[in-house]
């Protein structure tokens, strides 16, 4: 083997820690990129296969129970291709920790399901007193084929045997929805729940684009047939796909940030390597090495780093991709299939893992090797930078700062390029930390604010609108209730996005009227609406304007009498809240005036214990009267919303750890090089009486100075970066208002100090252990 090749490998293994850290830095970037690429590629393919929009209904009507013979009438309506009528019962499933919602669909003929198709994945189709559960229901409770489950039936509980598990195409995981899905024989369902007929009509159309007009037409048919329509859903649900796309898009951005940081790390490492070997470069040139040969030598070292980092990163990336695929597949209830790693993705990862380090290293190698033999052989010690640090001496002298601290601070200006690279790396790390902290704070603040307009302790929701009187009567028997008010929500379409039409009592006491303009409802108001601040900002409308919107079967144009602060109804493509008297909303939805779907309850005892106890009593009373309600306390609602963001937080803090690691490695390299270059200076300090601790302090001070400079820069750049980050991430679940906590700046300083200290430990300790005799003699 050639001596120059031997030197390449010896240089690599001579500084094992630096080599390891550099390879780890490259591997981390490639791991993130490849895992995300593999996972998003597989999820998208699986989603396209599994979601199968053709299996979903284009329109869905939830009605009062009626005869299935209506199907023949509906089938002949214009644009209707397929009609499927089902019995649909929302009930509750008793599990060890309490109970959860379970929607059961009655199927007349399991062999001829045309809409919302499902596949049997385990067990058998249900027979008498049996239920076929959705496979992802296993995320809600530990259940197997043959087990008996308890469901609420008309105020009591009944046991059903699990016949098997199915996977319904396009339906997100039950764990994500927090409600289960089951299938029973239709006759069995009717017999068990005493619900004659069908109450769920699913339609597929010839022309999907005509869905709104068709929905209005169908609503008229139901009306003509005297069938009460409780709810209508028009169009497909592609939120899950959008959510997955948004999540993977953000993760890809984060992985690119990790690769960028790896580049900075590599720049620092290569600069350190070339600097360390300046004398050797000079010697090689005296032996006849031309500059190109010297450059090829150091680029060969980088090539080995790149190959090793890519191999490790790619291997772990495939594994990481598999884990990501499994996790999201479970979450989204997708049929993932075998892991597929497209060759193009591997080529991309290899090209980036090897090509990017070489490109990044080319510049420092080019500049580092241009040094002349004379310059290279001019020896160790302070060189050039001493002059740059000179004027700081007057400043520090005036401030009477100890010399050892001065040494640490002034050394920052000795190698400006290297210091700049380290500064950039630390600033990125600090900015990433600030961005993540601000994002979690913004999300947390938003969640706290979402329900500030709604002063309930317990929220009671029924699956379909019901007469308010029935709920009131049932709740009258519950002790500890302070106030009760009805509420109804309905999604409506506007030209600016989906609005949340919210029906409240005009004289409400539980809805906090946070008016910012206009007035509240007065007696005699008709077709009046109050919009949220978000809706006003997005639409540009104000008090006195009119807003047009339409539901599945109705359209309206109401005049705006006020604007309130209400953060409900925010989401991708959402407009915000449109408040109206509950009677007007019911009229718009063509429901009886006294129907409600939600009731707000305020407790007399608003302690946490009191509220939880009230929720339990409400649950008991309502289920005993046969009302299947979903009951949640305000605290539980906030916790549930926060849990939805947990995966986001986990990803974000993982990125923070990665950038902190890379920042620490970059600073470690810088300080290690500083120690190496200043060995003679260290020897002189030690010969003058400096203890190891004093010497370590010099280098820790240098690192700390770097950290403080980066903190100051991050103050200027980090806040706008955090703002941009909140905007970017807000597009995934919901756009949240930017909220900034000034204490995060202190946390960020603490974070940087921790990174600096960790990075400084090794070099400072090494400096402290240097023996005088070694430093005052050339090696």
């Amino acid at each position, binding site marked *: 083997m*050639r*001596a*120059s090749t*031997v*030197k390449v490998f*010896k*240089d690599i293994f*001579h500084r094992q820690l630096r080599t390891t850290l550099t390879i780890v830095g490259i591997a981390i970037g490639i791991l993130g990129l490849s895992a995300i690429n593999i996972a998003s590629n597989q999820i998208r393919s699986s989603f396209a296969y599994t979601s199968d929009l053709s299996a979903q209904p284009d329109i869905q009507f939830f009605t009062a129970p009626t005869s299935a013979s209506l199907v023949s009438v509906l089938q002949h309506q214009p644009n209707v291709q397929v009609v499927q009528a089902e019995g649909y019962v929302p009930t509750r499933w008793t599990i060890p920790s309490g109970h959860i919602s379970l929607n059961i669909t009655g199927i007349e003929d399991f062999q001829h399901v045309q809409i919302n198709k499902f596949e049997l994945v385990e067990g058998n189709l249900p027979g008498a007193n049996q239920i076929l559960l959705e496979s992802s229901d296993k995320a809600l409770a530990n259940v197997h084929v043959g087990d008996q489950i308890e469901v609420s039936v008309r105020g009591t509980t009944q046991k059903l045997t699990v016949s098997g598990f199915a996977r319904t195409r396009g339906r997100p995981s039950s764990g994500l929805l927090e409600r289960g899905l089951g299938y029973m024989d239709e006759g069995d369902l009717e017999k068990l729940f005493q619900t004659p007929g069908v109450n769920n009509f699913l339609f597929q159309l010839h022309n999907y684009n005509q869905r709104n007009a068709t929905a209005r037409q169908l609503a008229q048919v139901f009306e003509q047939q005297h069938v009460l329509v409780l709810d209508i859903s028009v169009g497909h649900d592609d939120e899950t796909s959008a959510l997955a796309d948004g999540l993977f898009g953000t993760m890809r951005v984060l992985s690119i940030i990790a690769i960028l940081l790896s580049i900075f790390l590599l720049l620092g490492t290569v600069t350190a390597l070339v600097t360390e070997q300046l*004398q*050797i470069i*000079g*010697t*090689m*040139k*005296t*032996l*006849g*090495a*031309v*500059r*190109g*040969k010297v450059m090829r030598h150091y680029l060969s070292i980088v090539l080995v780093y790149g190959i090793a980092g890519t191999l490790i990163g790619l291997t772990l990336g495939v594994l990481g991709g598999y884990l990501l695929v499994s996790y999201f597949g479970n979450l989204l209830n997708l049929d993932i299939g075998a892991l597929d790693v497209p060759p193009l993705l591997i080529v991309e990862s290899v090209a980036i893992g090897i090509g990017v380090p070489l490109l990044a290293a080319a510049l420092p190698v080019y500049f580092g090797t241009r040094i*002349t*033999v*004379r310059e290279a*052989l001019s020896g160790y010690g302070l060189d050039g930078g001493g002059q740059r640090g000179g004027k700081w001496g007057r400043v520090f002298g005036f401030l009477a700062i100890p010399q050892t601290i001065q040494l640490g601070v002034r050394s920052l200006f000795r190698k400006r390029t290297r210091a700049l690279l380290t500064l950039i790396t630390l600033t990125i790390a600090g900015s990433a930390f600030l961005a993540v902290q601000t994002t979690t704070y913004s999300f947390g603040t938003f969640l706290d604010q979402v329900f500030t307009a709604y002063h309930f302790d317990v929220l009671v929701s029924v699956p379909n609108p019901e007469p308010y009187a029935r709920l009131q009567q049932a709740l009258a028997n519950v002790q500890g209730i302070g106030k009760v008010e009805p509420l109804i929500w309905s999604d409506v379409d506007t030209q600016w996005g989906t609005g949340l039409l919210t029906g409240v009592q005009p004289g409400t006491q539980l809805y906090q009227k946070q008016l910012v303009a206009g007035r509240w409802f007065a007696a005699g108001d008709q077709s009046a609406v109050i919009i949220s601040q978000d809706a006003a900002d997005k639409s540009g409308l104000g008090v006195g304007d009119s807003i047009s919107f339409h539901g599945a079967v109705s359209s309206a144009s109401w005049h705006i009498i006020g604007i309130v602060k209400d953060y409900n109804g925010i989401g991708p493509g959402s407009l915000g809240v449109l408040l109206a008297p509950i009677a007007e909303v019911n009229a718009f939805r063509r429901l009886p005036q006294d129907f409600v779907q939600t009731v707000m309850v305020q407790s007399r005892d608003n302690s946490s214990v009191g509220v939880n106890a009230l929720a339990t009593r409400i649950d008991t009373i309502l289920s005993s009267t046969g009302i299947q309600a979903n009951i949640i306390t305000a605290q539980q609602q906030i916790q549930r919303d926060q849990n939805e963001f947990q995966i986001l937080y986990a990803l974000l803090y993982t990125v923070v750890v990665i950038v902190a690691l890379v920042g620490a490695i970059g600073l470690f390299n810088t300080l290690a090089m500083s120690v190496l270059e200043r060995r003679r200076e260290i020897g002189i300090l030690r010969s003058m009486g400096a203890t190891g601790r004093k010497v370590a302090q010099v280098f820790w001070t240098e690192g700390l100075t770097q950290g403080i400079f980066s903190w100051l820069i991050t103050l200027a750049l980090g806040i706008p970066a955090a703002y941009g980050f909140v905007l970017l991430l807000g597009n995934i679940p919901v756009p949240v208002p930017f909220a900034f906590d000034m204490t995060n700046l202190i946390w960020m300083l603490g974070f940087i100090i921790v990174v600096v200290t960790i990075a400084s430990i090794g070099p400072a300790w090494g400096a402290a252990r240097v023996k005088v005799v070694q430093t005052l003699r*050339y*090696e």
Partner: protein
Amino acid sequence: MVLDRQDDPLVQAETVTKVIVNKSNETTILDSVSFTVPNGSLFAINGPSGSGKSTLLNMLTGIDRPTSGRIVFGGEEIRKMSENKLAQWRGKHVGIVFQFFQLLPTLTAQENVLLALELGGLLPRRQWSARAKECLEMVDLASYAKRLPSELSGGQQQRVAIARALANDPPVLVADEPTGNLDSKTALQVFGLLEELTRRGKTVIYVTHDRDLAARATERVDLLDGRVVSRSGALRMG
């Protein structure tokens, strides 16, 4: 290089001047230094610290460039060569021995010599191993071929450096204080090696501040404050 090894001067320095310009002042390191180095001589550049001897030596090897004047080495003026050209030229024509050895610390003694052969590019690859062994035998270190510099004494390291300098069989060896870092006994041994090389037809130019070592030269020039103060031996002006 085209030489009559017996008669032609190998190196000619003509009014070589080196001035260092700082922000605040100018420092003249060498001032119109002129001399020639005969072929096959043991040539000393002598002077106290700060006299400019190492700077002059660096001029002769192309490591440094004069502010004015000419250096003609084997009939070629080296001042006009580019850095890369100089590097290639050095690999073929000059073997350099440093005061602090400048061995590559991660390579063994043999690998240090092999590196010089690889960079010089004069011999085909299949002959490198044998040549490296031969060079190490010339300095009596063949049995230490696999040792790292850190495993060798100062004198041994310097001998490896000499072996490395001889790898491409250059006509000239240039040594900057070759014994400056050695004890007196070892210094004599190493210097004896250099003398032996001249008997084998090499020209050895060395810098020293040691009068005794300077006295053993066949030709010499003495510097003081950057100027030639005396010459001795059979010198001819170029």
